[in-house]
């Protein structure tokens, strides 16, 4: 049933960025991780008050919650270490009262500056350099991929 705008409950929108750079996650997995984090930290009652829902796209997600519960949501989000099978971190960028405002504050997707193969400890990694001196090293194996995080000045990736 539709309600007048003045009668609708107030919502807050939290913009989060995924780490490692360039990772894309299934929005359903992101929702499952957020719901699990809220429930395990705050319990069922408070989680129902937070009432989180997730919209995710390349490298980012907008998480909606009830107004007044955004601090609890952000605390729960900071305890997320995995989404699906991926090791990730969710960095909160900003909080807003409207979707329109938060969409305009999207964090630019980092550009890949160069890509090449490097050897570390007898293993071959694909090194991908991003702006801000960041270099991610990806080793693809049978059991999935392993990642190392270096900086452009580190001797191993020079």
């Amino acid at each position, binding site marked *: 049933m539709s309600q007048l705008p003045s009668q609708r409950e107030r919502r807050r929108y939290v913009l989060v960025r995924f780490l490692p750079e360039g990772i894309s996650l299934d929005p359903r997995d992101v929702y499952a991780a957020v719901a699990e984090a809220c429930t395990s930290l705050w319990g069922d009652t408070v989680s129902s008050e937070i009432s989180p829902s997730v919209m995710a796209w390349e490298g980012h997600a907008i998480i909606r919650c009830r107004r007044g519960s955004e601090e609890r949501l952000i605390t729960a989000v900071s305890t997320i*270490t995995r989404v699906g099978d991926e090791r*990730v971190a969710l960095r909160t960028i900003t909080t807003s009262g409207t979707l329109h405002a938060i969409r305009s504050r999207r964090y630019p997707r980092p550009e890949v500056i160069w890509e090449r193969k490097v050897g570390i400890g007898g293993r071959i990694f694909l090194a991908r350099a991003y702006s801000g001196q960041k270099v991610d090293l990806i080793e693809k194996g049978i059991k999935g991929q392993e990642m190392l995080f270096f900086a452009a000045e580190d001797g191993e990736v020079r």
Partner: protein
Amino acid sequence: MPLIDGCIHPYPDGDSSLRRMALEASELGFDQVVASGGSGDVPGVLRGTIISAPSVKEVISTLQGIPRGDGVVMVASGDLAFNRGVIGLRGVRVLKGIHRSPKGAFNHVAAREAETKGVAVELDLSPLVESRGVQRQRVISRYTDLLQLHRRYHFPFTLASNARSILGQRSVRDMVFLARLFGMEEGEVMGALSSLDSILSGRSPVQVVRG
């Protein structure tokens, strides 16, 4: 006062290099980090040494091999007698991993001694992030008890992510919110994040200024 992440563990202990973790820490709002490993001279990084020993005697012999004034010396906590012994040692700056020690391993006597000697107690935030259920509840309960002692006896705290990866590092704001889980106020969090600076420079956290 600079905000300092009390301890990180870079490559090869973790999966991220010291430089990369220092870059990430700076983006997350920290001025400095204490690193328990890694190589190279990196701006904004304080060198840390962790001593894990079963007895105070062994801690003393390990301390003798560390040049005086060489970074932040942290000792992994044990039972009450061990902790009291360690707090009294010259050169020890931080008592680490108190949540892993038995209950009662840090009481009002140890709290008074820590305040007098200027030894900080580290509150490791990684179990709040990584563990779930009863394990996390125990850590929250332990930190609540420590906070009560801190408010009464004013010994210094440090807050540490103990991250082994950039994925484990948390922002200053996240730390404020996580510390609220055990009742720490924002001002207390900021005090804990900047306490190492005054401990290392030998300043008292409270200074009397006469006009």
